[in-house]
Each structure stands twice: as C-alpha cells, then as structure tokens.
C-alpha cells in the first residue's frame, strides 16, 4: 500500500536521507530504527509532509504524496503522532480528537461523524471521552495516548507513530505496544513505528528497517535484523553497551 522509491533529502551539503527504497503491505507494522541522526525523523517528516524530499517518490495506494503539505497528506490517509506530545490545551481531550475527526477525514464530515470518530479513537486508546475531561489531567502516558487518538480520529490508512514510548515506565510501554497491535487488529491500519526502545518494538513489529547515516542497512523480520552483524555494529552494539552499563549502575 506504500511504495517509497529513491527518497533523498539534503540539508545544504549534508545528506540526511540517501536514496532509500522500501514498501509496505496493508496491515503491516514496520519498525523504523537507527542511531541518533540516522535519518529516521527526516523520513518520518517527509512521509507526513513537514519536509519536501529533494528526490524520490512516495506513493500511498498508488497516489503520489511526496511534497504535499501536511493537511493534504492527512486527508489522503496518513495520520501522525508527535514525539513530544502537542495537545491543544485550550480544548478538552474530546475536542482535541474531534478537531482531528472533523478536519482530518476525507470527504464531507458532519459534526456528529467527527465526534463519533473522536469517541471511538479515545475508547481505543483508553482515554475518557466525556465532554469536560481536560488535557491538564493527563500525564506523560496519557498525552502519548491522546497523540494516538488524534491521529486515529482522522481514520488513517497509514499511521506514523513517532517514538511513542519515550518517557514511559515498563508497564506503560508494554501496554502501549499491545495497544498498537490492537489498533492494527481492529482498524486494519498499516503502521510505521519510529522507536528508540528496541525490546518492546521487536516484540510487536512484523518487520524492521534499520537506518544509518541516511542509508538503509537492513530490512527484514525482527530476528533476522537482530542477528545482522551490520546492525549489531552500528546500533545494537552501542545500545547493548548502554543497556549493560545502565544495568550495572542500578
């Protein structure tokens, strides 16, 4: 359902993403990983329209979306979350999701439709959908869920989840990972999940794509990628060291 070909992005002389190809089947969950500065966020931002690629094409269900502005990409069926949650604090939780439901769905949407898809989305992520619930009552985990609910209320065919689990504790992480799986089961939505936290990601995704210095260095099932020597060298190696040192400290 998604085909990305020859995707490149330069910032001045720096090549952030270099000629990356990949594709996704409907209903797949793809984990996108790589060390800091490897181009994950740049790819993410090109998929969601924040950045225009210098080269390459992004086709969603046969439709070219590369270079379109974010609202149009949202209407074409791509929902996204922000790494650092960006709720609208002037609006209630329900209004936040309803705004997405109203403006983010393609075609003529009535107010009732918007509120209904907002309530459905909030239920799916486990947030209160009563009229008065304020955004200020939400903690870190709640705000992440609201990001997901906003994206889901737009009824996306492709969900881009940006480091959804940063800042959560272990139980919350497990719950959130299960939630992504659950969302896929219930809505049949295709998901690209950009994540730092490897353990949980590996458990949930169908496929993993690894980036390093803007290039794709591996693409395959979680086990296959985890044993790929290149990947271990650039990413898992340093991560394993960090994990080990963290374990020693505690």
């Amino acid at each position, binding site marked *: 359902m998604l085909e990305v070909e020859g995707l490149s992005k330069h910032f001045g002389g720096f090549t952030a993403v270099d000629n990356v190809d990949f594709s996704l089947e409907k209903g797949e969950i793809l984990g996108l990983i790589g060390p800091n500065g490897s181009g994950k966020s740049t790819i993410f931002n090109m998929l969601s329209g924040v950045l225009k690629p210098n080269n390459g094409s992004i086709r969603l269900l046969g439709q070219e979306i590369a270079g379109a*502005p974010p*609202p149009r990409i*949202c209407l074409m069926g791509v929902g*996204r979350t922000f790494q650092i949650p960006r709720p*609208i604090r002037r609006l209630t939780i329900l209004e936040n999701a309803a*705004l997405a439901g109203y403006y983010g769905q393609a075609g003529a949407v009535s*107010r009732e439709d918007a509120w209904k898809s907002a309530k459905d989305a909030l239920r799916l992520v486990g947030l209160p959908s009563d009229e008065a619930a304020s955004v200020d009552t939400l903690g870190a985990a709640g705000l992440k869920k609201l990001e997901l609910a906003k994206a889901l209320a737009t009824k996306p065919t492709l969900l881009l989840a940006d480091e959804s689990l940063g800042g959560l504790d272990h139980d919350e992480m497990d719950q959130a990972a299960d939630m992504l799986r659950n969302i896929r089961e219930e809505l049949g939505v295709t998901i690209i999940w950009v994540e730092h936290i490897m353990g949980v990601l590996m458990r949930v995704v169908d496929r993993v794509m690894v980036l390093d210095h803007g290039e794709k260095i591996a693409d395959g099932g979680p086990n296959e990628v985890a044993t790929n020597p290149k990947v271990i060298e650039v990413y898992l190696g340093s991560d394993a060291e960090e994990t080990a040192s963290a374990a020693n400290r505690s």
Partner: protein
Amino acid sequence: MNSKLLVAIVAAVLVALPFLGIGPYPLHLVIVILIWSFAYTGWSVMGRFGLVSLGHGAFMAVGGYVTALLWNEVGLTPWIGIPVAMACAAGLAVLIGYPCFRFRIIGHYFALVTLALSEVVRQIIIATRDTTGGSLGYTPERFGDGWSIVAFQSDDRMMFYYVALFFWMVGLVIWRLVDRSMSRYALEAIWEDEDAAAAVGVQVTKEKLKVTVLSAVMTAFAGAMYCQYQMFISPDTIGGVGISLQIVFAVVVGGIYSMLGPTIGAVITILLAEVLRIWIGTEAICLTDKICFNAAGVPLLVYGIMLILFIIFLPKGVVGAVIDKWQGRGKRAEQS
C-alpha cells in the same frame, strides 16, 4: 434570574428606547455606541484567536470612503456601494493576510504589519486629497431633506437607531455563529500550535484567511454605517492608527473572549470620552505661565492609563471578569 427572561427584557427596552422619552443627544450616543460595537465585534471575531490586528482602521476607512466616493462621484446608491466597499475590504484583507499567513507572520509581527496597513490607507486618503478631501474629511452629498431609501440617508435619528440596533444584533449573531462553528476549534488550535493543527488536517492559511476576511468585511460595514449616519468622515475619525488602537483598546476593556465584551467596551469608552470631554472641555489648561496643554488630549491620556491597568488587572475585560466571578460562585455553590 432566568437568562432568557433577561434577554427578552433587554431586547424590549432596546426596541422601545426611542419612545421612552430619551432626548436627541442620548439617542445619538446610543446610535454611535451601537455602530462602534458592531465594529468592535467585527474585530474581536478574529482578535479572540490571537490574531491581533492593529490595522482595522484601514478596513473601516475603506468601508466609509468607498461607499461615499461611489455615491458622490458615480451616483451609485449605498445599497450597491456598501457591498462594493465590503468586497474591497475583503480584497485588502486577502492582500495583507495571505502573505502573512503563508509565511507564518504571527503574533507581534502580524500586529506590526497590520499597523502599517492602517497608516498606508490613511496616507493614501491624504495623498488623494483632490478627490477624498484629505485630512479635512469628506461628506456624502445630501439627497435632500427627510429620508431616502435610495441614498440610505435620514434626518430622523429614530430610523437610524433601528438600523443600527438591527445590525448590532446581526453582529452578535455572527459572533455566536463563529463561536459555535468547527472553525472556532480550528482557530484555537492554530493559535496554540500551527504544526499540530496542520497535522490533523487543519488548513491553517485558509482558516485564518476566512476569519480575517469576515472580520474585515464587518469592520468595513461599520465604517459605511458610520459614514451614512454622521454624514462626515475623515482619516482620523474612521481610519488611521488612532482608530485602529481605539478598536483594540475598547475590546480589551470590554472583554475579548465574550460576545458582549466589545459592546460593553464601546459603552465604557464612548461614555468615558463624552464625560471627559464635557467635564474637562477642549480648552488649553495652563499649570503655570509657560506650561500649557490642550485638554483635548486628556481623554487619550486617561485611555492610555486605563489600557495599562486593564491589561494588568483585568486581562479578560469587564465582561470576562464578571463571567469568571459568576462561574466561580456557581462552582463553589456546587461544591458546598
């Protein structure tokens, strides 16, 4: 008290007002207040979403001058002239709004651009003084005595009172419609975080342009109404930086975020200006032989001090503060 009953009583009093033995001068003040209230409501339609325009004097001047010029020069009835003037204001709003919104000129920078707009329009009026009369002002030609529907003119204050009252209510209805629309949520979201709004499908530039055009058109209409009522306009009475700031000031005093805020702001500022004018007069006041100042400037001084005090102590304006107090009392009553 039942709020519906209150609205009904206020409406009845307003409709019956000319028959309640009100003198011509107080009636004149009420008409002026209604016309300015409409303009202020027009400003607050966008101002309440953080789109602070310091250029609405420009739209008001366009409304007044285009209508009057078309009447005098072309003989076009204000029934056509006013819509044309509103269309011009809409065009001007797009001309200034589109580049601002497209290139994300927001907050203080947007205010500065609009401030320049009001001065540009004032300068254009002054520069074309052969046609517009420049800073001496401009008068639509009288149709004759009595009233004329074609000329949208009337000697009769009472008739104009009802016209002004009707449009004032239309202004409130527009405010309410915007408040209840989905655009309100979109604009609140845009105000807080444009990227987050865009990410859920909100077309930021389009939403901002819509509300800006609405606001400009309303303000232009107020300018045309003012012109038809006063039968005299000048760059300083309906345009320029002075009027633009007066609009902002009155709305801040009354309350930016409430429907009746702009109206209460108009009541307070216009009555205050009248009281100060009558009380202090416009003669020169001399403290010593050498230090004299023109008393006509005193209202401006009082305005300035009030604006500072309001922004510090009553940022939501008089109406906002009353509503907060009211709701606070309601909440306490619920809790106990």
